[in-house]
């Protein structure tokens, strides 16, 4: 469920990045890299888990699924927090700088 959630987030972010390319004003590439990187790593984790559990891997209990979904959503949220911090620090549109200068004046 964590892998699925991250893959969905990666696909949506990549589609949004492609829509805004090549301008990339919102630095959506950061989200794409993070989610794809995590998806690939969790995919490897899933392969090893499948090798150990076999068919049981595909029949998790509702409690396990809920916990994994909760974790997946938390991971997506963490990725978004990292992205927004980087976006505001890099400030590609100069919005933060402009608002700070306005306040000073």
């Amino acid at each position, binding site marked *: 469920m964590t892998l699925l959630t991250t893959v969905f987030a990666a696909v949506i972010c990549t589609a949004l990045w492609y829509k805004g390319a090549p301008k990339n004003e919102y630095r959506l590439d950061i989200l794409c*890299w993070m989610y794809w990187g*995590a998806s690939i790593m969790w995919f490897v984790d899933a392969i090893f888990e499948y090798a150990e559990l076999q068919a049981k891997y595909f029949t998790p209990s509702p409690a396990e699924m809920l916990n994994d979904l909760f974790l997946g959503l938390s991971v997506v949220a963490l990725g978004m927090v990292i992205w927004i911090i980087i976006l505001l620090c890099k400030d590609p549109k100069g919005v933060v700088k402009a608002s700070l200068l306005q306040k000073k004046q």
Partner: protein
Amino acid sequence: MACFLVPTAEAIAVTIATKSVGGKERKAALAHTDVCGDNGEIKKTPFSHKLKWLGNLLWGGSALLAFEHLWHGEVVPWFPFMTAANSPADTAAMLHEMSTVGVGMALLVTAVWGCMLLASNIIEKRPSVSCARTQESGEQAI
């Protein structure tokens, strides 16, 4: 347990390599442009930029995986930072997981990056839409 440490170690090595290669490329005055040159030819993306893609994948994935380990209580914010480091049996299991799952993760991410390199090389070889249009309009004018 600590599988994310292997991609993290690779990410550190890749970041150092990116800085080193980038410095050499700047010295060699290789300008990074994906756009058409004066003659309509496409200049290649420097290798340091492509190496950065691998670094981004590794850092991003490792950060989110570190959070997952924190979630499961395998990583703690106090010494020795890994709960598996408390007993020799757990440490052995952790090292086994790092050498199997962790190495697998690093290898697959690198393999995906390799595919991206191949794809980017193919894309760079074919003329971009804007370049093709410029050349077409130039030919029509002639």
